[in-house]
């Protein structure tokens, strides 16, 4: 058995060595303590209804499921539903998908399970969305005038721009680039190139390209908000919104964990009884 476990250890070592270096934007950790915070969930629901539901639907989500986050029908009707929907309806939008595709190049995805859809082995969907929604910067070169550090050339504009205030962005990308060979000299070669792009608050970019002798490929970014307090308030608002999206992705998650505790407790007793029964029956086997 020892040699088998040594084999496993060797396998683990090989896997560690194979770990690839990340070329994507580092994600900010979403404050996970808001996952079960009712106030955060309700504030997130409000942001969701006001900002997201104009373009994105959540067609698997019934309005009255918001009872689970302590909102009653009256509150839902008065504060969240626009138009003539009833609380038993699902959160659909009036925008026709065909038009949406025409306007944005791509129909905005349904957000019912968006957090789970953005989960990956490498990162959680909540961190991804928390960073994505706070990762917009002005960029004159795109159609909407906005760009994003997590999702380059995203079709979606920055919906929080008014509240967030203008921000300057600095993007630093280090990557291998093909340097074309001179006509008479050998094959093309790869060089490590660092590109620093500085976007001012109006989205005008200054690019600075340098060749590096050594270094690791990677991507880093930084924002400098003109009004730090406003940007901070938006951070918190987005954190609440992600809490809501996370809850909406699996409304039964809390019930699931609650029942799970009982199931495990029952099974511990079951194993105890099983052990006792087993030892009683096997007493006469010598």
């Amino acid at each position, binding site marked *: 058995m020892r040699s088998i476990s040594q*084999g496993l250890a*060797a396998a683990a070592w*090989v896997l560690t060595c*194979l770990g690839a270096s990340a070329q994507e934007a580092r994600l900010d950790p979403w404050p996970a303590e808001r996952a079960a915070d009712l106030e955060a969930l309700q504030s997130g629901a409000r942001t969701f209804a006001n900002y997201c539901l104009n373009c994105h639907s959540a067609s698997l989500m019934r309005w009255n499921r918001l009872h689970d986050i302590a909102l009653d029908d009256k509150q839902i009707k008065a504060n969240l539903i626009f138009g003539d929907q009833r609380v038993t309806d699902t959160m659909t939008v009036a925008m026709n998908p065909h038009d949406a595709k025409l306007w944005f190049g791509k129909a905005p995805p349904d957000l019912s399970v968006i957090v789970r859809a953005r989960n990956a082995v490498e990162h959680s969907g909540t961190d991804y969305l928390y960073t994505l929604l706070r990762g917009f910067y002005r960029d004159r070169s795109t159609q909407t005038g906005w760009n994003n550090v997590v999702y380059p050339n995203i079709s979606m504009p920055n919906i929080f721009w008014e509240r967030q205030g203008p921000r300057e962005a600095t993007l630093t990308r280090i990557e291998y680039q093909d340097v074309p060979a001179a006509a008479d000299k050998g094959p093309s070669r790869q060089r490590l190139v660092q590109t620093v792009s500085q976007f001012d608050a109006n989205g005008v970019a200054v690019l600075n390209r340098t060749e590096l002798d050594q270094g690791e490929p990677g991507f880093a970014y930084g924002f400098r908000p003109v009004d730090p307090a406003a940007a901070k308030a938006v951070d918190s608002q987005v954190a609440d919104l992600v809490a809501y999206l996370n809850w909406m992705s699996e409304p039964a998650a809390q019930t*699931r964990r609650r029942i*799970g505790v009982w*199931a495990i407790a029952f099974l511990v007793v079951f*194993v105890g009884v099983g052990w006792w*029964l*087993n030892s009683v029956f096997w007493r006469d086997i010598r």
Partner: protein
Amino acid sequence: MGLHTTNYKGLLGWIDARMPSLMSAFRTHMSEYYAPKNFNFWYFFGSFALMVLVIQFVSGILLAMHYKPDSNLAFWSVEFIMREVSGGWFIRYMHSTGASFFFIVVYLHMFRGLLYGSYRKPRELVWVVGWLIFLSLMAESFFGYLLPWGQMSFWGAQVIINLFDSIPLIGRDLSLWIRGDFVVGDATLNRFFSLHVVAVPLALLALVVAHIFALHDVGSNNPDGVEIKDHTDANGRPLDGIPFHPYYTVHDLYGLGFFFLAYCAVLFFAPEMGGVFLEGNNFSPADPFQTPQHIAPLWYFTPYYSILRATTSEFVIWLGLGALFLGVLAYLRVRKRWARFGVALVTFIVFILTTVPQVRLDPKLWGVILMALSTMVFALLPWLDQSPVRSIRYRPGWHKVLVGVFVAAFLVLGYLGMNPPTPVSTVVAQLCAACYFGFFFLMPWWSRMGEFKPVPARVTFAAH
């Protein structure tokens, strides 16, 4: 009156008088089936597998009550089950967690067979039927994975069905016939649903019955690999055997507690298992116009998928050289004239189809062949293993090292198959693939080499 004389009383007696085969089956398979008394924890996994089969049947039946096999509705109907059907999330997670646990349990069950030589004569058929169960299980899971109609469902099916394209002459028609359309679509979804809920489960059930019948005819092996039927008492009962019921029914009940602890821990606290059991991308509805950046099958297929991807054109040449080496070894080993001719012919064909540029097959086709072979090769184990003892306990220490290397190669292949390939990982996968096939195909030689420990006449057992 034509009634059978019964020893049972009451209702059971009434039934037994009219249908004696019921209690006779109970005696044959439970109360008078003698199993070795020295089973260790590895022997739990068979009954665990049976338990998972029941879980999958029950949860599957409940899911089919709400699921809609229609490409416009399928994705939403699964999420409808998660939200609107009472307890729907529980049913769905039972099924999705059960699928992964089925493979965990079956892999461990197969590994037990490998450790203790459970496939050796006279249990070859038990093993071969078990291998057919394994193949059916893979088919079942492949068909089932399309049903949620998410991005991974769609593109995974697309990639795997396209593999049939590489078969010469009939490939394109075959893949078209499987899909029922030029791309994976509504027709594919409907037939996969039918296969998943009717055809394959029927086959699985029949094979499981055959597996148990075959086992109970020859009797179970045990960790010492000694034959308990060689030492019997005056009534012909094995001295080291104990009735399956009640001894192993209570024993397995105890074991099932641990199984359910692990199963429920995942089901209730990590049903996605970090994106391995339920992949994030599969929470996006299938979109034929948007290919995901990275397509990988579910974790239990990734070792074979890795072998498929590792088969590059450079690797095919090494494959030819490996086949030549193996062919020479086999030629020297076999004695019969026709067998030698067969070995020489097969070796020659494989060698020229891998190395001679004018006739060599597409590396993609070799990849498909190797991937198929990697799942087929299990069936040959009873004949590849030529060791004079069954159990790993009495084999030379370095045999254990080889088993360890094989397990490590299998796990590394599995891990690599989940990730996009890189130049380094492809080389590692090729080395692991070589270990994988080398372990099996060189087994007729290595399994009889080395110093074997003396095998006891009776099982080793310490009372509980």
